[in-house]
């Protein structure tokens, strides 16, 4: 399938039971994310238009996945994720978090790295890249670290690898496989 990156088309996933929260101040942006998630079998349980609204829910309701936009008025996505990681809420403080960003301000690049999100996806994103990140965070086995004021997944990809690396490796593997297959079939002779 066009746009499919590091995932096999035939791989089977079951995300139906994932309690998911989407936070985006833009109603249409929220609809786009929720529509893509619905295609994956995820019915968005909590659709929030502000960080404050999300915080109230997160205090009382466990979630399995948080998808949050970075740019929001008042409290932005980075601040929400930083609060969540430091909230002491169990299990929510450890929940997989994917952030979406149309543009990351230079002054916020460090915050994007340090707020504790598992991933930041830049918009416009494809459904394939969103699904790929969801599968990655589901399988993310990195430990959580507390270092200074950072609390979140280990930012060094030692065991779990970033999808970008996987994609490159997959492309190389696929090319090698195709070359071997062609050689075995006598293509080009």
């Amino acid at each position, binding site marked *: 399938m066009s746009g499919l990156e590091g995932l096999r088309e035939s791989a089977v996933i079951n*995300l139906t039971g994932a309690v998911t929260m989407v936070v985006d101040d*833009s109603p249409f942006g929220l609809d786009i994310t929720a529509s893509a998630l619905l295609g994956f079998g995820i019915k968005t349980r909590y659709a929030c238009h502000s960080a404050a609204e999300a915080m109230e829910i997160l205090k009382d309701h466990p979630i*399995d996945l948080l998808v949050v936009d970075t740019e929001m008025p008042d409290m932005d996505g980075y601040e929400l994720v930083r609060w969540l990681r430091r909230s002491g809420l169990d299990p929510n403080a*450890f929940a997989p978090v994917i952030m979406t960003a*149309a543009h990351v301000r230079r002054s916020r690049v460090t915050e994007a790295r340090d707020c504790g999100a598992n991933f930041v996806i830049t918009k416009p994103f494809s459904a394939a890249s969103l699904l790929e990140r969801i599968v990655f965070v*589901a399988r993310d086995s990195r430990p959580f670290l507390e270092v200074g004021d950072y609390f979140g997944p280990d930012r060094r990809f030692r065991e779990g690898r970033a999808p970008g690396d996987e994609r490159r490796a997959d492309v190389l593997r696929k090319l090698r496989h195709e070359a071997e297959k062609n050689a075995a079939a006598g293509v080009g002779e």
Partner: protein
Amino acid sequence: MTVITHARRKSRLSKIIDDAGGVSVGVALSRAKANLDSLAPRSLAEVAARIAELSALQPPETPEQEVATLGLAYRAANGVIDSAGPFDMADVCAVALGLCDLIDAVTPQRPFDWRVLPVYAQSLQLLLALPQDAEARRKVRDSLDKMVDRKLAQPG
């Protein structure tokens, strides 16, 4: 610096994803695409609304107004990217991203050139109106890219 390591507990998501049932990745993506396709007409209206917001912005008269107006322009440009989203409007997104870069690069030494705002608004309107394969689309984007490069090359 002290490092405290919390052993990673398996998240519920990591268990759910391998539960019996579910769908193939191919089916999930086809469904997502169908869902997103149904939003495409709304996307155009949303992008047009954000461009109208950009067009309506007037150059500020005070430093306080400048901060507020730049914030509005940045949010509108972000909104264009949000709304254009996964709907084959890569050049619209790229142009809006250029405006975000220019606003983000503002410093006391490199103030925002308010003449570019209507240029961006009109260019985005043009991109919305032109057919997807029009050569003019590339020209619009190229000229704006060059302008961004020039502006960002100025000392700031």
